């Protein structure tokens, strides 16, 4: 009986930690969304939602990463005023991919995130240019892309590191102890092998 009650308590704690973890991700997402719609420094609104989605994907399962990617995409589209669902579509593909790569092939490190995030940003940027600017052949679209969107995408690459460390902090802080210890052991082992 005691064992059953202990197990239930552990499950409850794990659920609470998971809830808190996702709550923190959501707060960070909201903060980045607000940064885009009401930039603290006028004219400087890096698309931090993309590095957030990719960073969360590195620490979470593929399904959760996909759902979070869709939400992030919606927020990004609403903030940017682009076709709703456009970014969600790409993040739905990218986030589970990163999550799977993180689980099976890639080491969870800032360098991996930087590379994965850069690829993701460049890919979304290209899709953005292709479908929302180039296709329409508007005279001003190229100018607005170069002067407004391109810098925002570049900032999304440059600021991926702090976003990664923030997500890692949230992820490790609100993860069950056993899981955390296991991850640390795997990480140490990988470093020793290196």
């Amino acid at each position, binding site marked *: 009986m005691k064992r059953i009650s202990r197990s239930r308590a552990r499950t409850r704690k794990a659920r609470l930690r998971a809830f808190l973890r996702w709550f923190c991700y959501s707060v960070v997402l909201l903060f980045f969304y*607000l940064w885009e719609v009401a930039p603290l420094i006028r004219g400087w609104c890096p698309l931090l939602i993309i590095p957030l989605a990719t960073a969360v994907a590195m620490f979470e399962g593929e399904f959760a990463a996909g759902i979070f990617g869709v939400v992030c995409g919606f*927020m990004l589209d609403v903030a940017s005023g682009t076709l*709703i*669902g456009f970014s969600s*579509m790409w993040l739905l*593909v990218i986030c589970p991919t990163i999550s799977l790569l993180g689980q*099976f092939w890639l080491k969870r490190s800032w360098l991996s995130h930087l590379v994965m995030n850069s690829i993701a940003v460049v890919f979304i940027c290209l899709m953005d240019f292709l479908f929302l600017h180039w296709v329409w052949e508007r005279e001003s679209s190229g100018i607005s892309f170069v002067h407004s969107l391109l810098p925002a995408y570049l900032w999304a690459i440059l600021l991926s590191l702090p976003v990664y460390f923030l997500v890692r902090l949230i992820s490790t802080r609100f993860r069950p102890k056993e899981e955390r210890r296991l991850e640390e052991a795997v990480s140490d082992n990988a470093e020793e092998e290196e």
Partner: protein
Amino acid sequence: MKEFFHSVKFKILICIAALLLGLMTYVAVAAGTQTLPEQVINTVTYPFVTAANAISNGVNGFIDKLVNADTYKAQNDELRELVTQMYERSADYEELQRENEQLREMLDLSKEHEDFVFSEPCSIIARNANDIYGGFTINQGSNSGLSLHDPVITSVGLVGRVTEIAGNYAKVSTLLSPQVNVGVYTLRTKATGVIENDLATAEKKQCLMSQILKDADIQPGDVIVTAGQSGLFPEGLMVGTVKEVYNDPNGLSKHAVIEPMEDCFAVTSVYAVVDFDGKGLSFDTGDQAW
């Protein structure tokens, strides 16, 4: 990894992708309508966006002040200079307008009195201190052709005469002053008299007409003009209207209280009549103006 592609979760993600494609198509076709995800995001984030905007505006305003302080200072200096120029222009414009009005009045007076030679329009530059009779100083003097005793008028009527003169200014004593005695008559009955003022009437901003014959027909409301017999004032200049008539205590003559046509305390510009027909013909001391 293979398990994932065969799992229900993967199928759900595929369904979501299909939904997203449908959503995108719907949004692209029905342009202008808000979709459910947009509505949800906008509704949920509205209070946060409002607060964030307030913070953002505050921070941006602060940064803007710091970053663009030099620009704003330069703009401020530029605008100050512009405002000063505008004020100067406005003052010039007012001055020109006033001068224009004065010249217009002068033209009218010249038409009425063809024999009059006027000075330049004279502005009142000072009120004589402690002068209860309303004496003042004008900005034209002997250099502009004015001379002592020249009558000073406005388009309304007589104001006074020059009692002190210098090169570029002159002092004027008004009709209320005992220094200015003017021979006058009523337009209606030609009843004559002399403006001889005293302190009591001057305090009420009125003049006293004396030496009116006992039998003379003079009534309140009669208009008084200059007689022009002294050579000091031209004939026919409006002086005022009769307010009250009463008999002298000795019973030999009458007196009349005159309300001057022009308010000597309110005038801001006047003209000196430097020459007119009959000037100086019986001019003697200047204090007696018959």
